[in-house]
């Protein structure tokens, strides 16, 4: 990597940072400091704006870098991520978006707590939301780190560390000064940039192959050294039954996890009505679907043009396949075109990471302040002070994510996101669906279903090969691996649903029919929605 790359990429990235900081200052000039404004941006975004912002929140570095990297290395098996990430939106669209918009105010816990005894439910849902957010943040931080490693030649650990810290510091600035309004505009800008970058690269890949997708696939298969097997499932997950189960587990986690992601749920509160929430999801499905179709082209393109060996040589997990592809498409490392394209892609990926990180930080600070702090301190905190707590929480969440991000540096980003999805699907989705659709659901059921999903998911991750017992583990030296699968979803998601069921059945408290009626009427009609 020459100095030109670095300078140009850093320059472009600085421009993005300057623009977003400008947005942050601009939107916060008339700040009232109300909770409504901080968490929900005043609820006045249009469906199209929110659709872009949702897409911006969702199309993380994991998608752009991680999925394309997995496809470049393992061919078809990487494509499962694309499919799962997209199909998941049907769960959101059908079962969650409108109803959550109608029932809640700021967080997931609002929806559940409306029907239940407030305090235990808020603490449970708040805890799981923060956990999911932190896991997701770690993935983004790892993405930032590996991008910088590529940019600076991969040797400088200090630079990598400082990038992760710098990204963390910037996001704290965005979130605590700009709140949801600034975060949303940053997502929108980023979504436009990311779509633009992906479209440009896709077109270049297709032009390289004269628009012949078939030719692209054949070249990728040849170049990969696996031949036809590269285009069929099984390269990464096809070995023994453990890895096949892992694949199914991952698939479940992806499709069910999205609807439980706190930063996605909080986006629905930024539009005025449920109808607007639905239309924003339709927008985002269009954008996200288009984007994932392009990641498929980019992934196979990277395999065909760059070659899996070069990709693996740069980053073992494949996270740098797309920047390398850009370099090649522009004309190679020594050409101006290559330098420019590489710099643009690297800057976009940075911007992506920054924006997603800001979105998640905001959502988790809302959970900390609105759910945990408000419940644990019984004195009714005024909205003003709750926002102050949220700002402080943003800093705390940032610090934790930075620390874990430095620790988890060598894991594939898409894989880490898969973990976050598994936890979201196990801990958040069951309680959400039960609250919205089950008449007899009780407080105990709610609390049990959160912890009954959260605890097994986390414990299984700790006992999995990800953490110990293998050469690629976090702690390769230790061995306390008792659970064979990388992704806990297959076990922990059913456990979450089961725990909610058991908790409700064994509950001594009678289900509150009036509250159920209120939730159901509000969910489907929007009566009394804020």
């Amino acid at each position, binding site marked *: 990597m020459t100095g030109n790359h670095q300078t140009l990429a850093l320059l472009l990235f600085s421009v993005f940072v300057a623009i977003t900081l400008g947005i942050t200052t601009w939107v916060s000039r008339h700040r009232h400091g109300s909770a409504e404004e901080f968490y929900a941006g005043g609820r006045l975004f249009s469906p199209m704006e929110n659709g872009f912002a949702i897409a911006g929140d969702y199309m993380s570095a994991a998608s752009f870098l991680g999925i394309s990297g997995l496809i470049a290395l393992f061919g*078809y098996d990487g494509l499962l991520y694309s499919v799962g990430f997209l199909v998941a939106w049907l769960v959101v669209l059908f079962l969650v978006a*409108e109803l959550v918009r109608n029932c809640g105010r700021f967080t997931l816990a609002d929806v559940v707590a409306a029907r239940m005894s407030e305090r235990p439910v808020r603490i449970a849902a708040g805890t799981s939301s923060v956990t999911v957010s932190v896991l997701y943040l770690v993935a983004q931080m790892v993405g930032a780190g590996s991008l910088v490693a590529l940019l600076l030649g991969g040797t400088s650990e200090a630079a990598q560390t400082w990038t992760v810290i710098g990204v963390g510091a910037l996001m704290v600035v965005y979130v605590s000064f700009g709140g949801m309004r600034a975060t949303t505009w940053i997502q929108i800008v980023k979504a436009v940039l990311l779509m633009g970058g992906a479209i440009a690269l896709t077109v270049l890949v297709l032009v390289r192959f004269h628009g012949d997708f078939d030719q692209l696939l054949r070249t990728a298969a040849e170049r990969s050294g696996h031949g036809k097997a590269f285009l069929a499932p*099984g390269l990464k997950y096809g070995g023994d039954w453990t890895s096949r189960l892992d694949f199914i587990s991952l698939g479940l986690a992806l499709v069910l996890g999205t609807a439980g992601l706190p930063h996605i749920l909080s986006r629905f509160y930024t539009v005025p009505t449920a109808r607007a929430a639905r239309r924003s999801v339709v927008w985002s499905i269009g954008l996200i679907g288009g984007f994932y179709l392009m990641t*498929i082209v980019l992934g196979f393109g990277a395999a065909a043009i760059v070659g899996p060996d070069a990709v693996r040589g740069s980053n073992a997990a494949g996270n740098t396949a797309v920047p390398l592809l850009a370099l090649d498409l522009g004309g190679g490392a020594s050409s101006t075109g290559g330098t420019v394209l590489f710099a643009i892609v690297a800057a976009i990926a940075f911007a992506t990471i920054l924006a997603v990180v800001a979105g998640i930080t905001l959502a988790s600070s809302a959970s900390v302040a609105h759910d945990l702090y408000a419940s644990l301190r019984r004195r009714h905190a005024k909205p003003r002070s709750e926002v102050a707590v949220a700002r402080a929480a943003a800093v705390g969440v940032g610090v934790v994510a930075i620390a874990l991000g430095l620790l988890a540096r060598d894991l594939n980003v898409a894989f880490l996101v898969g973990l976050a999805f598994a936890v979201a699907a196990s801990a958040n989705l069951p309680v959400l669906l039960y609250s919205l659709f089950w008449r007899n659901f009780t407080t105990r059921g709610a609390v049990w279903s959160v912890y009954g999903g959260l605890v097994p998911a986390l414990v299984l991750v700790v006992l999995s090969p990800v953490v110990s017992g293998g050469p690629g583990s976090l702690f390769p030296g230790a061995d306390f691996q008792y659970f064979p699968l990388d992704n806990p979803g297959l076990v922990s998601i059913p456990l979450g649903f089961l725990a909610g069921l058991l908790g409700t059945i064994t509950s001594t408290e009678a289900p509150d029919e009036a509250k159920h009626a209120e939730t159901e*009427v509000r969910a*489907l009609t929007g009566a*009394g929605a804020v």
Partner: protein
Amino acid sequence: MEKHDGPDPGQVRIDDPWYDALASGWGELDGTGAPASAVPPARGEQDDLSARAADVYLEVQRSAAFQEVRSRYRRFVVPAVAVFFTWYVAYVVTATTAPAFMARPVVGAVNVAMVAGLGQFLTTFLFTWAYARHARLRRDRAALDLRWDTQELTRSVAGGGR
């Protein structure tokens, strides 16, 4: 709130609702056929006002108009979720258990797996379109009417209490 000219939105207006349900009283069967039992005093010591506000929601929940909205929602969503989820799980399970089948070529380098994967994209787009259309034509108007009615009632209960 535009585009409300599907075949049956008018229907909603006709058997609309709400006053009908009031007139017929609310001790009768609800839409599911279960006797709509008298409301259990949900929270023992609730003050009168919020108890009556809660009654509003129970009342609305039992009204024919609401039941219609709810069943329209469910009639679309339940089968749709069943179909797309089965299709997705079938895709994932086939990919893991029958890679040989998935590797069978269709056209050139494109194999069954690739067709199925792109098929998932296509069905997702189709489902999204169908759901948005269904909600726009069959639910939005009726839900909005119910929303205003409910809020009106809640307000009058709250107002009457003072």
